[in-house]
């Protein structure tokens, strides 16, 4: 299997083999993170720009470290401190980065499709999606899949339940595309007001969390955004927690082999009680570590195409 894409726009368009290649490559890169000198010379002389139009710490730092572990030079551009506030368009900003001879642009943008736009308009620059609106967040889903596979040995037949605001979640979308392709059995659970229309055609849908949790291997809780409550999509955080959160009582009922995931940042006491976040079932911090290995793999694979 040879990687042939200069961009990673989303998981929807990837084949099972391509996803498998990224995960295998990431497994090889993980070793580098635990060396005394955490660096390989693979991308020496390369320049990678983190172009972030939305706030992010985890994803930005993770890409930055991934690039640095591969010896690339990393530059961070955030919308609030760039010419974007002076009215420059996304494409112009990106063309300027290319004029500065950046080889790869990692883009986070609030508009779905922003990454696809850059990827198709910049034929000689690699573009990696770090989250585009409500569309996709492919590297998050890849690190989730990597973590599940590392913990449970496979993705085939694994029963994954994604809980929360599915409607607005690019993490959920990427995970549904990716996990389904890899043969996992994906279902979702959340208030009807936060489920996209037609989702039942793609995955199994639950509205009762206690019913949904039965027999699942992986429970993935999504971050709830407080604005959604202000928009009237659910009545209160307390009620949300009671109906769709990991409560103390639900935590007690959990089998020891079930793993708990969250893309972060966690609202403690809303999506999950602190005992769940910090408990034995939680792999939340492993997800963070694995994120660097997965992003190294993506940067590496994309670079092999750009070099040709």
């Amino acid at each position, binding site marked *: 299997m*040879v990687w042939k894409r200069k961009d990673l726009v989303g998981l929807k368009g990837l084949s099972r083999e391509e996803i498998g290649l990224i995960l295998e490559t990431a497994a090889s890169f993980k070793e580098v993170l635990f060396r005394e000198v955490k660096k*390989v010379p693979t991308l020496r002389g390369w320049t990678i720009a983190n172009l972030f139009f939305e706030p992010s710490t985890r994803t930005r730092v993770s890409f930055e470290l991934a690039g640095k572990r591969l010896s690339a030079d990393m530059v961070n551009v955030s919308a609030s401190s760039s010419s974007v506030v002076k009215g420059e368009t996304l494409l112009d900003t990106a063309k300027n980065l290319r004029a500065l001879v950046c080889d790869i642009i990692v883009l986070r943008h609030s508009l779905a499709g922003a990454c696809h736009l850059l990827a198709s308009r910049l034929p000689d620059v690699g573009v990696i999606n770090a989250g585009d609106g409500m569309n996709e967040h492919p590297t998050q889903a890849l690190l989730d899949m990597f973590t599940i596979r590392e913990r449970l040995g496979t993705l085939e037949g694994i029963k994954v339940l994604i809980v929360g605001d599915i409607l607005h979640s690019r993490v959920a979308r990427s995970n549904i595309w990716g996990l389904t392709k890899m043969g996992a059995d994906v279902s979702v659970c959340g208030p009807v007001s936060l489920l996209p229309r037609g989702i039942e055609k793609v995955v199994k849908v639950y509205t009762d969390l206690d019913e949904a949790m039965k027999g699942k291997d992986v429970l993935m809780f999504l971050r709830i955004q407080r604005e959604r409550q202000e928009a009237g999509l659910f009545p209160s955080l307390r009620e949300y927690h009671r109906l769709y959160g990991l409560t103390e009582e639900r935590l007690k009922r959990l089998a020891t082999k079930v793993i708990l995931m969250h893309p972060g940042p966690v609202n403690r006491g809303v999506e999950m009680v602190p005992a769940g976040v910090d408990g034995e079932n939680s792999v939340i911090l492993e997800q963070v570590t694995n994120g660097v290995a997965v992003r190294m793999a993506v940067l590496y694979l994309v670079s092999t195409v750009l070099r040709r």
Partner: protein
Amino acid sequence: MGREKVILDPSGFRRALESRLCQPLLSEGFPLSDVVLIGIYTRGVYLAHRIQRWIKRRTGMSLPVGEIDINLYRDDFVRRFDLPQVRRTNLPNVTDKGVLLVDDVLFTGRTARAALSAIIDVGRPAFVKMMVLVQRPGREMPICADFVGVEVDPKDRRVYVELKEVDGKDRVVVR
């Protein structure tokens, strides 16, 4: 496929491996207790394990075996179209140890150069010696092997090392 010439048949292969690679290790001046074997993916890894098993049978000593993938250290990225998958590098502690670096063929020396960089990134070995089953002319780097199974000069043709583990039988051919 062109003409095929067998350089080592299975019994020749075995003799080259045992008498020219394994046996000389016992009479070298260094204590095997401070030595690690490191195989270069793919075939060097299998050969390193074979050498390890031979030494164990002979001396009872079980040398650590590491595996190295040199893809992250290549200098010829631009010209490679079929980049193979990056495999897991898994190195034992090399600091102050003697390292026996094992590969199937020594040709340009660029793979060995990359492997040296990778080894030096994880520690400071007491020495590194190179073991190859086949040596052929064509060096582009100042690198030579310390232990050689067989020397060939295939001119413009390629050398193929076949192993039981991968190809079903042990053989060296030129095509």
